[in-house]
């Protein structure tokens, strides 16, 4: 059942200590290829930290992450990450085309030149997201939906196998939302695996086929049809875990030598 080659992502006992805020504990799960995965959980419960820990961006206390069956560091190049909108400086002087071209950098490295075929691929990616006309615009001239699209284009150019998105639908109009979902489903059909941190619980059964619920620990991970239950939702968003959090934070403070008063 645990055939490594067919799993997009396999995580074992991932534990992350992150200053004195969201902590992740002992997370283990497996996600097969070709799924559209929704990641949900209360705010500040560690969803973004979780994503960053898997990508190796946050130091984790322990645990092993296997991307497409291998835990080598270079596997990270097979992952595309779409950042939260707030973390980008939209006044940065860069054109849409140049931003999309960045998708080639994992392959080209620091020094290899950009060739004509790279530029053509970039324009093609822009075409996929319906933004060809904007290729030479500055990014501060784009709307929110357009901004999301060009990041999708960059991810496309990366030719990644796994996609991680942190609240891609925040502040986006419904037309762009539809567009993005169609786009993601198209990627899924090609065998890509997509992880989306999402806030709108209601629409999950409609679009996603796999769900992960996180609240400092992994409540559940599996098919939406079987795992997206009221009981699981209660445990994720409910209040009966106060004691857990209290003890958790206490332990954390003890390990940092900080006074717990």
């Amino acid at each position: 059942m645990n055939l490594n080659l067919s799993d997009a992502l396999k995580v074992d006992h991932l534990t992350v200590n992150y200053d004195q805020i969201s902590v992740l504990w002992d997370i283990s799960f497996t996600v097969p290829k070709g799924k559209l995965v929704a990641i949900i959980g209360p705010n500040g419960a560690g969803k973004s930290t979780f994503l960053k820990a898997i990508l190796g961006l946050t130091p984790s206390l322990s645990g092993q992450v296997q991307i497409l069956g291998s835990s080598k560091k270079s596997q990270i190049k097979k992952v595309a990450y779409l950042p939260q909108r707030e973390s980008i400086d939209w006044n940065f002087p860069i054109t849409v085309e140049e931003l999309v071209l960045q998708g080639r950098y994992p392959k080209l490295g620091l020094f290899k030149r950009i060739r004509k075929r790279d530029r053509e691929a970039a324009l093609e990616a822009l075409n996929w997201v319906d933004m060809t006309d904007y290729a030479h615009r500055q990014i501060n001239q784009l709307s929110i939906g357009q901004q999301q699209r060009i990041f999708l284009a960059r991810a496309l150019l990366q030719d990644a196998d796994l996609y991680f998105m942190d609240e891609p639908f925040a502040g986006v109009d419904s037309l762009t939302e539809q567009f993005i979902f169609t786009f993601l489903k198209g990627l899924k059909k090609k065998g890509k695996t997509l992880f989306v941190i999402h806030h709108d619980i209601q629409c999950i059964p409609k679009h996603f086929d796999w769900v992960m619920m996180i609240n400092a620990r992994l409540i559940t991970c599996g098919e939406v049809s079987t795992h997206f239950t009221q009981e699981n939702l209660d445990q994720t968003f409910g209040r009966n875990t106060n004691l857990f959090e209290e003890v958790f934070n206490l332990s954390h403070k003890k390990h940092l030598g900080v006074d717990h008063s």
Partner: protein
Amino acid sequence: MILSLLNPYSGQGFFSFMKVGFLRLIQFFQGHLSLKTLAPDELQILVLSLIALSSAIVGVFLIHRKMTMLANALSHTVIFGIVLTYLILRKSFELIDPTLSFKVMFLASLVTGVLTAFLSQLISKISNLQKDASIGLVFTTFFALGILLITLFSKNSHIGIDMIMGNVDALHYKDLTSIFYMLGCNLLIILLFMRGLKVSTFDPIFSKLAGFSPTLFNYLIVLQLSLTAIGAFRAIGVVLVLSFFIVPPLAAHLYATSIEKQILIASFIGVISSYLGVSLSRHLLTHYGLALSTGGLTVLCLYAVYFLNRLFYQAYRGYKNRKAKLAAENFTFIKQD
């Protein structure tokens, strides 16, 4: 140094300065003049322009990485580094040796820069202290140490002031060499690493995923920053070098469509201001008998150029907006037809 009596620029006003300079430039290209027969004013313009070029390169990245206060801090700790270097090399403090060899400069900048950045981060992380407070603690302490050492070992407290404020008028021909090297270093680094620098500035997470370590590039910028600050301190002092780092790039940001263009425009602004500063200084001396600090005047020119830029840009934008509005109105008008 050429005596001021033989200085072709003495006695010139603003416009005659231009004329003299132009003529000498022609003579230079005809081979009659060489770098060794550089007039003091020309030396000043050259040094300031080179500093401006270096600073534009580093400054653009500093602004986008929101590292300007770290730059301020670093320029203060640089004083400590320089003083310590002098003490260790046991050069006489009375005559600050302009031939402080480039290798020593490089080493001093490496150590002070990395130390400052590293200590600030360490304190901030372990004590859970806000970043600006930890930077503040580190640099004020080192700066106090630097000033203490200066006042301890130099009988002439003027030296201390010159380090903080610089003295463009005391520039020596040999300063050119070290500044050339500094610019060369900076150019080499950005030509090689432009891609990594841009991406790690714009999207550090993507940069890490692509294999370009953001920490490495952070320290690269810190290195370039310290190098430029050390290179510039003799001319304009450590506090004013900050203005070269931030004012031209801020002005250039209005027009730039890419980082490269921003660097170019910022360089251009910096060079123009250097020229204006020196010629203004000469003009004031000639026509009003006022001997003002050339460094200070250059910085004021930088700001003047910035504000003019800003005004011009507002006007240009206003003009474009009106044009667009007019076009839109015409369009609807035609449609109604």
